């Protein structure tokens, strides 16, 4: 099912008093892909995820998780049977042992895979008899991942999954996520670690101030996105550049810097026609797109 959406929101909004946590969010996450969900702290990533999982009620708008409405508690509960979730803080029941928590979690899911759980328990070197409260943050993160990955969920949602992991743990995590995706699990994860996202994600969604500001495939970023810089002899002209594909325009003195998602040749030609002294067309990294996306609104 290459073109179905596992997450769909339409004008999804969440306000806490005067604070607009999520504003008219139209988000579509395709199945069988790894989608990175990026944004600054407080951009609305966790609130969006909480609304999808029925933890927080939307103020307005609609959404669907695996085709089931997030507004209908019964439908959302049914969707959660097929969704694994790793929360941002990875806190689990401290009064249970690792083994007890695995047994507890297993009882709720028909798709539990004991062999995978045993393998991950050994790989992550988690002590089965140790109380969860006695685990380090890194081990707790691994346990949360074990609980999510020991099933074969249709959708795996992770909120800052690599937080608290050392470099080796992060590497294991990324490989595990790629492995899960190759087995057919759709992955949707929020992160601040752009290199990690760039390494494994197929697609990226960027939110800022609760609004979706970018949604693109990383292949498109590599192939079509460019930074084009025009240098002028005098101050950069403030002509409007009405060319499709221009995402951002920034004027600074005698320079005009643009981010384009296509049409780079046409935009460069337009710069020359504006008497630009220099025209520089360069590939752009995810980090640059991210900063451009969130700094404009800052």
């Amino acid at each position: 099912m290459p073109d179905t959406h596992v997450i769909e929101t339409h004008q999804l909004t969440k306000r806490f008093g005067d604070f607009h946590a999520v504003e008219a969010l139209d988000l579509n996450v395709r199945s069988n892909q790894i989608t990175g969900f990026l944004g600054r702290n407080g951009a609305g990533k966790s609130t969006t995820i909480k609304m999808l999982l029925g933890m927080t009620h939307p103020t307005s708008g609609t959404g669907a998780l695996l085709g089931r409405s997030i507004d209908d508690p019964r439908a959302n509960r049914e969707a959660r049977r097929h969704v694994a979730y790793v929360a941002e803080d990875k806190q689990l029941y401290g009064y249970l042992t690792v083994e007890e928590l695995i047994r507890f979690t297993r009882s709720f899911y028909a798709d539990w895979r004991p062999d995978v759980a045993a393998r991950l328990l050994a790989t992550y070197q988690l002590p089965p008899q140790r109380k969860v409260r006695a685990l380090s943050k890194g081990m707790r993160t691994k346990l949360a991942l074990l609980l999510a990955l020991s099933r074969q969920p249709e959708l795996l949602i992770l909120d800052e999954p690599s937080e608290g992991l050392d470099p080796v743990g992060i590497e294991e995590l990324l490989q595990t996520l790629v492995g899960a995706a190759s087995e057919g699990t759709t992955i949707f994860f929020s992160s601040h670690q752009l290199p990690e996202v760039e390494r494994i994600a197929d697609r990226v969604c960027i939110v800022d101030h609760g609004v979706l500001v970018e949604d693109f495939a990383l292949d498109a970023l590599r192939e079509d996105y460019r930074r084009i810089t025009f240098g002028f002899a005098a101050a950069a002209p403030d002509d409007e550049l009405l060319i499709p594909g221009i995402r951002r325009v920034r004027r600074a003195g005698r320079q005009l810097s643009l981010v384009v998602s296509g049409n780079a040749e046409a935009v460069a030609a337009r710069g020359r026609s504006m008497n630009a002294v220099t025209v520089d067309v360069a590939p752009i990294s995810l980090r640059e797109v991210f900063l451009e996306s969130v700094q404009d609104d800052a």
Partner: protein
Amino acid sequence: MMLWYKAWRESRVRFLASSVALAVICASFVFLHRDVSPGMSDEPLTYPVYIWHITYKGYLRELFLFLTIFLGLGGLTRERDLHTIGYTLALPVSRFRLLAVRSAVGAVEVVLLATLPAILLPVLSPLVGQTYPPSQAWGFAILWATVGTLTYAMGLLASVLFGGEFTAPVAACSGLLGYSLLADMSGAKRYLSDIHDVMSGLDMPYFTEQTGLLSGPLPWATLLAVTLGTALLVVIGLCVTNRQDF
């Protein structure tokens, strides 16, 4: 089944500590009977009157009520403070079921706490050369269990409304105190029973203060009203929980 286990594990320490506290104090009252009783009244008290004064109307009753409120604390709002809420609410389980299971486990624990004096008093009294009728002890156990589930529900509702570790018990105790004050006001007395008095039988037609014994049929209508009050508090808790954002 594992939700029951979770509810039990979350309340286990509190329940066991409460049981030990109640049992130790109850046993102390029995064994210290000869030392404590003379100081309680100018005239010698019969053993059932002594037991009634010190347990069913006295310290043990207040301790029991406090412990039931204590047992009611916890739940999803508390889990939000402990940051385990994301894990719990991601489970394919309704909030209704989470709270209902917790309420049921708590109610069973309250009933067990209420039966502790009913078991200990008749068993321990012969050790100090006294007897306490089991029928009396079980009569009071029914009164305590019914009222105890109400105060448990107060603790539960306070926990739903206020997540703080100290806010919820203070709110529940204040609610209990407020209700007692209201019930003691002259205008309200016709419509409300002070739950302390329902537990002890003080000024109630089913109890004789001179003998310290239950002397008539238990107040089933009052107990039903208390149970309905308990159910109402739990239902309010469920409705609030369903609307909450975590």
